[in-house]
């Protein structure tokens, strides 16, 4: 079974600064998806960024980028130019490509606070 570990329960960053959230995972599969989801207070979870394991290039979405280290099974999220609207819980998640096992397996989350 796959596991996802987020070792930072809480993080804070000054507005306009950069912050990195950590995530490690464990799997025996060679191909899979990795995600970062954002869960604002009392709002639904939304996708921030996705990485396909077969792609060596790190994914980037505007101010959000990842550092994907497949051999190390590490998948960190970097948020540049932090904004007040970035305050939320951030979850790292793993998804198998095997049929019948397409569920998302989540980490325990990191609560990000933006300091004005």
């Amino acid at each position, binding site marked *: 079974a796959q596991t996802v570990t987020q070792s930072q329960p809480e993080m804070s960053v000054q507005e306009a600064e950069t912050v990195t959230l950590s995530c490690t995972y464990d799997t025996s599969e060679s191909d899979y*998806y990795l995600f970062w989801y954002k869960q604002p207070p009392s709002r639904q*979870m*939304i996708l921030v960024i996705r990485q396909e394991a077969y792609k060596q290039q790190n994914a980037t979405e505007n101010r959000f980028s990842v550092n994907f280290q497949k051999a190390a099974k590490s998948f960190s999220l970097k948020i540049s130019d932090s904004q007040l609207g970035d305050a939320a819980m951030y979850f790292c998640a793993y*998804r198998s490509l095997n049929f019948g096992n397409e*569920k998302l397996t989540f*980490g325990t989350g990191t609560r990000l606070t933006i300091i004005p």
Partner: protein
Amino acid sequence: EAEVAQSPRYKITEKSQAVAFWCDPISGHATLYWYRQILGQGPELLVQFQDESVVDDSQLPKDRFSAERLKGVDSTLKIQPAELGDSAMYLCASSPRQGSLGELFFGEGSRLTVL
């Protein structure tokens, strides 16, 4: 923009009572998931449907929880009887048969408080 609909948003009940949650996925999405998120933790899968069939219910406490998706569209998750430890957010998510590159689309959740 299409969204996953869930109701009720909030539910307070006493232990030993029955409670039900409803989810309407994005139109055309074949796969539907129910997750439970205990405060301060990540969501954990309870049950996964592909159309009307259960694909994975290995973590569903079947002595008290049941889930159905009779016509392969909307779904109901039931708890009977509710226990104090069931207090949590119940999240519904859906995904299309193909084309989403693995993304799940989530509803706003149903927050259950058992007294």
